[in-house]
């Protein structure tokens, strides 16, 4: 090890000069949405901090944000193109992303033969890494098929929908005392998966699913008849599986048009600024889960968040997955640093980075201390519950607030730790 340090010092001129060259890190996120952009900010912040501290083992990092939006919504095709661009440039040694599970499903098969490290700050569909246990519906695609025999190159710093869906089921059933709900999903990989996981847990608890409806963004603009069918079937709450870029929160507004005031819950796809905007007039008491611990609830995270806010002062710059992205970027850079040592102080190969990432143990991030299993999943199995409330100082909430209604923000309520169950 001493030899390594000596070598690094010799080659790097003190180890902080950063004159060995540049290592590129990419991110593939739907930056057309506030959720995607605030996540990219977390990566940029981590990279900027690392470079300001003198880089790593003589290298500086260069960060490039790729956008996987097409026509205003995430697109797996755009994501694949972005990954191909990164694969085509040997300086890219890893990426943060993607944001959406459907994009990951398309990207893993092309990145895994190249041993290209992907760390998602927010993918929650369980089938990307593992099989789900009964009684939940089995996976319709399989992690092993996506990797087609290659060593795992995909990690995520958040937990999965087989915990996220049940967390909201527990919360609605036990805390909100709602025992009959209508379920609506947006027909996407994420939406179908999380609403299915919710439904299974809700029934296990003894609850009733009044009706489960699906819609597609391209074809639905009025949800009132769907909501009325829920109401008439006896629903006393609504659970939505989907994301804001599929307009999943407009039904929340329309519940008010119907004069139907019952609890509304969903997954991390609705814990966003755009969701609050879509619900205009009926923002309060939207309940949402997030597949990780809340950074603002962790005492040790405060200094990082404060520094972030100084660097990114915009009202919507901080989001539900900003700190997860920050941790993911630091985990990646740490693995690259170890891989540089493996390569004798030179630029490592992608396989060296992948193999070091796979050895990550006890990585201390802002959110917690991460261990990853061989599938790429984190040992942190915390799901947070948020609710939209009126706050006096948005900076003291999660920071996820409306654009028009800047005082209506997601506020942390509680968390479920499935690792302790």
């Amino acid at each position, binding site marked *: 090890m001493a030899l390594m340090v000596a070598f690094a010092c010799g080659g790097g001129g003190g180890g902080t000069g950063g004159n060995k060259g540049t290592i590129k890190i990419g991110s593939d996120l739907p930056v*057309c949405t506030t959720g995607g952009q605030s996540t990219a900010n977390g990566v940029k912040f981590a990279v900027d901090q690392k470079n300001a501290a003198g880089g790593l083992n003589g290298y500086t990092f260069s960060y490039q944000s790729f956008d996987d939006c097409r*026509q*205003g919504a995430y697109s797996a095709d755009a994501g694949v193109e972005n990954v191909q661009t990164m694969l085509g440039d040997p300086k890219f040694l890893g990426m943060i992303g993607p944001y959406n599970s459907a994009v990951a499903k398309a990207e893993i098969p092309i990145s895994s033969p190249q041993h290209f490290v992907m760390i998602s700050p927010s993918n929650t569909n369980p089938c990307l890494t593992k099989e789900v246990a009964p009684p939940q519906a089995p996976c319709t695609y399989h992690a092993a098929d996506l990797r087609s025999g290659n060593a795992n190159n995909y990690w995520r710093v958040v937990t999965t929908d087989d915990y996220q869906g049940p967390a909201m089921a527990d919360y609605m059933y036990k805390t909100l005392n709602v025992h009959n709900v209508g379920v609506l999903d947006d027909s996407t990989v994420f939406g179908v998966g999380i609403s299915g996981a919710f439904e299974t847990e809700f029934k296990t608890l003894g609850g009733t699913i009044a009706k489960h409806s699906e819609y597609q963004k391209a074809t639905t603009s009025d949800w009132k*008849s769907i909501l*009325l069918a829920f109401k008439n079937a006896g629903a006393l709450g609504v659970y939505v599986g989907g994301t804001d870029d599929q*307009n999943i929160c407009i039904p929340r507004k329309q519940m008010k048009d119907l004069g139907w005031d019952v609890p509304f819950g969903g997954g991390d796809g609705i814990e966003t600024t755009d969701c609050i905007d879509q619900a205009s007039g009926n923002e309060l008491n939207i309940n949402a889960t997030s597949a990780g611990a809340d950074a603002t609830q962790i005492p040790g995270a405060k200094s990082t968040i404060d520094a972030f806010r100084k660097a990114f002062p915009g009202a919507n710059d901080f989001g539900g997955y900003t700190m997860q992205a920050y941790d993911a970027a630091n985990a990646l850079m740490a693995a690259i640093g170890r891989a540089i040592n493996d390569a004798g102080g030179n630029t490592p190969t992608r396989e060296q980075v992948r193999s070091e990432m796979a050895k990550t143990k006890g990585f201390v991030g802002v959110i917690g201390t991460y261990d990853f299993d061989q599938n790429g999943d984190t040992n942190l199995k915390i799901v947070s519950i948020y609710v939209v409330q009126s706050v006096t100082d948005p900076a003291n909430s999660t920071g996820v607030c409306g654009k028009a209604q800047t005082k209506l923000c997601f506020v942390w309520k509680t968390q479920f730790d499935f690792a302790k169950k």
Partner: protein
Amino acid sequence: MSLIDFLFYIICAAAVILLAAQAVINPTAFVQITVFGLADGAMYALVALGYTMVYGIIELINFAHGDVFTLGGYISAAILGFFAINEESFSVINLVAILLVFPVVMLIMGGINITIERIAYRPLRNAPRLAPLITAIGMSFVLEGIMFLWHGPASVHFPDILPHGLGYQTTIAGVFVTFKDGFVMATAIVLVTLLAIFINRTKLGKAMRATAQDRDAAQLMGIDINRTIAATFFIGALLAGAGGMIWGLYFNNLFYNLGFRTGLVAFTSAVFGGIGNIPGAAIGGVLIGLIAAYSDSYINSKWTEVVIFGILIGVLVFRPTGLLGMRVPEK
């Protein structure tokens, strides 16, 4: 009665019986869904009229029409921003704003649509029919692109300035009705009535009907064809602009590619009622709105699109001229 006719009536009867059964099981819900369907249908009708008028006169499916409708909503939202409107409760300023913005937006959209016709369609008047059709699709993308650049991909908030909330909603025998539902239907009825009077009673309306029947003969009679066709686009856009604003006032949400879907549904309505036929488009719009609402509630929203476009196929197979008959230039 041919076999095809027989099948058509059987299918219609089956649908009516199934609906009637639902109406008997839960009449309150049935009426409630009907109210939603009528409100949605009224807006489809306003858009469908533009499709049918343009098709009637130059046999062009103006795919950009749905986006003219959406742009109407975007522009009215922008103009409303200049007023000190109150979204919490209804104020006099809201009323003034609505009364002023309606005609302004309609005229702006009329002007835009005339420009589109002049630039994109008129040079292709005598080209093969496929050429203006493709141009119309291109125009649709151009308009969507403009709205995308203007407000980005996320949904755009439209000020909620119609009277709403307690005091403007009531429950009649279990059916929840808001002022907004009534407003949408009443405005649509007024606009369609005005259009009918214009087409049937005015000189320009007569010229439009004549041009639709036989362009050459109309020209021989001294009708300015270019002016008449431009007028058709203008009037179609007046209705689309009003439709866009009504949509915004009703849903309070717009997004840049809303016109794609709404346009397809409105076009289906126009074919359903008999393309080129003005009362047909209005009735077709209302019926499609109702069918979509029934399907959302009684079947499942994932099947609604199948139902709507299944009807389009059914109409083309069983009733190629639509419910009220096609009215297009006779060749």
